[in-house]
């Protein structure tokens, strides 16, 4: 395992621990006003306080829960849709393949952030809709990938053997082909989670994602632009956390790619 991958796993472990143990670790109630004004980082408030006087460290810990959960759930949705679509397209081919791949083409031609924004304004912006919308707009890459794997694997002899002994299509798809396509899917999922965390942060920053008082790293940045002169830590800290998370996921993804022998 390379140094970068180890770094990635270490940071992820820290972030997940912080997220899971947030209620025990947070020195303050994340929603409570603990000071009467904005304060810079200090021994009492490690990350300072925000414009309402809430402890930023506590909010960041609770924000980790939201941001990481949104990332995981969104990517699970995307991988499920992408895998099923790609498997059907690659295994059956023909008109079904044509139909699914045209849908992929259409979805890819949207600037995705625009589609997400549009859907989000139409729905009530809340954490569940954020997960669903990100999932529904980011499955296309996985779909193409899985289709490619299926096209390759379905011609292999062991699939022919499975068919010869009378396995059903579903059994061949799920028991024989899919496990052998797992490597690329796992790598794509890891990188996809990085993308989902980024998208959530942008959405919440624009006010269309996770809604206050619930804190996510993205919505912690929402008001920071107004306090940039007097309280730059409000803009710096949540962004650094997003950067670290995404970077770790990239490093883990690269590590997995090498370990699982996945081509680029």
């Amino acid at each position, binding site marked *: 395992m390379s140094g970068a991958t180890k770094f990635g796993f270490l940071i992820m472990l820290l972030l997940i621990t912080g997220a899971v143990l947030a209620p025990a670790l947070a020195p303050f109630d994340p929603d409570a006003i603990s000071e009467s004004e904005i304060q810079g980082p200090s021994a009492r408030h490690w990350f300072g306080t925000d414009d309402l006087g809430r402890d930023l460290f506590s909010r960041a810990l609770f924000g980790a829960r939201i941001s990481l959960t949104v990332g995981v759930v969104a990517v699970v949705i995307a991988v499920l849709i992408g895998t099923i679509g790609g498997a059907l397209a690659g295994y059956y081919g023909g008109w079904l393949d044509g139909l699914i791949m045209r849908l992929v083409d259409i979805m890819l*031609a*949207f600037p995705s952030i*625009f*589609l997400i924004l549009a859907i989000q304004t*139409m729905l009530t912006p809340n954490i569940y809709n954020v997960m669903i919308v990100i999932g529904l707009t980011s499955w296309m890459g996985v779909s193409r990938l899985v289709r490619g794997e299926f096209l390759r694997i379905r011609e292999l002899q062991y699939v022919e053997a499975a068919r010869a002994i009378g396995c059903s299509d579903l059994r061949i798809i799920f028991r024989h082909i899919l496990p052998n396509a797992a490597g690329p899917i796992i790598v794509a999922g890891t990188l996809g989670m990085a993308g989902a965390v980024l998208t959530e942060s942008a959405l919440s920053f624009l006010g269309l994602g996770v809604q206050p008082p619930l804190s996510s790293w993205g919505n912690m940045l929402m008001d920071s632009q107004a306090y940039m*002169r007097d309280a730059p830590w409000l803009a710096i800290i949540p*962004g650094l956390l997003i950067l670290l998370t*995404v970077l770790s996921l990239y490093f883990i993804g690269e590590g997995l790619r090498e370990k699982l022998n996945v081509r680029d």
Partner: protein
Amino acid sequence: MRRYILRRLLQLIPLLIGISLISFLVMHLAPGDPTALFIDPNVKPEELARVRTNWGLDQPIYVQYFLWLKNALLLDFGRSYTTGQPVINEIAERLPMTLLLMIPSYLLTLLICIPVGVISAVRKNGWFDNLFTFLSFAGMAIPTFWLGLMLMLLFSVQLRWLPAVGGIILPLMTMTIGSLAGLTRYQRAAMLEVLNQDFIRTARAKGLPERVVIFKHALRNALIPIVTILGLSLPDLFGGAFVIETIFAWPGMGRLGVQCIFQRNYPVIMGVVMLSALLIVLGNLLADIGYALVDPRIRYERRD
């Protein structure tokens, strides 16, 4: 080649219709009514009904869609709910501002990513490669909007060199750094792959100077994939424009789109989506054509 281009152009028609249908449904099936955002709630019901009729909102949704499609084919995208101006004019006013960011950013990206990618590949695992590998991972992991905020913090709040809003340098920097990271990685990978080919080994074996091997034999082949990726990176560039223009209050098409989404200004949103989608699919098509032009091995049709 001509027949291939014609076929691809014809394929764009169902694609664009599909895009318009999905966008239309997403907007119009949402609960609520756009008039609620523009019209004084105390207005008389007759007046409200008149506005709804005017905007065609009283029609069944499939009628609304076919009306929109019919007019769109004649390049009439309706009028903005807020300003009453034709959508075409609104977009035509803003598009040059977006292109003013995108085109220089594209050129700058190319100008930087090709040499950096090539040097990284030639000196694989050297200090230059390691530095830029780290930088490109960081660049890919940075949220674009936060990069914009940080540049603003550094250059306008701390150093006071550049205006936070109104100047072109900060949004241009944000957009370029955002697309640079991925493309540099891509160029490096392309060069590495070429350097592992047999013909490079042959060139070295017959005693050509390394300079000739790199520039004449390897680089030319390593530039081919970048032509494709140029077309394929258009959606990301557009996506970035929406956020970047919003942060820096840059009066381009992206900001117009985001504002209209918040206002549920349907005709303008449809116009912006369709134009972006058209540019994206045309970009992809140009990428494929460019690919065939620079690489004579690629043929999209059988030679007669």
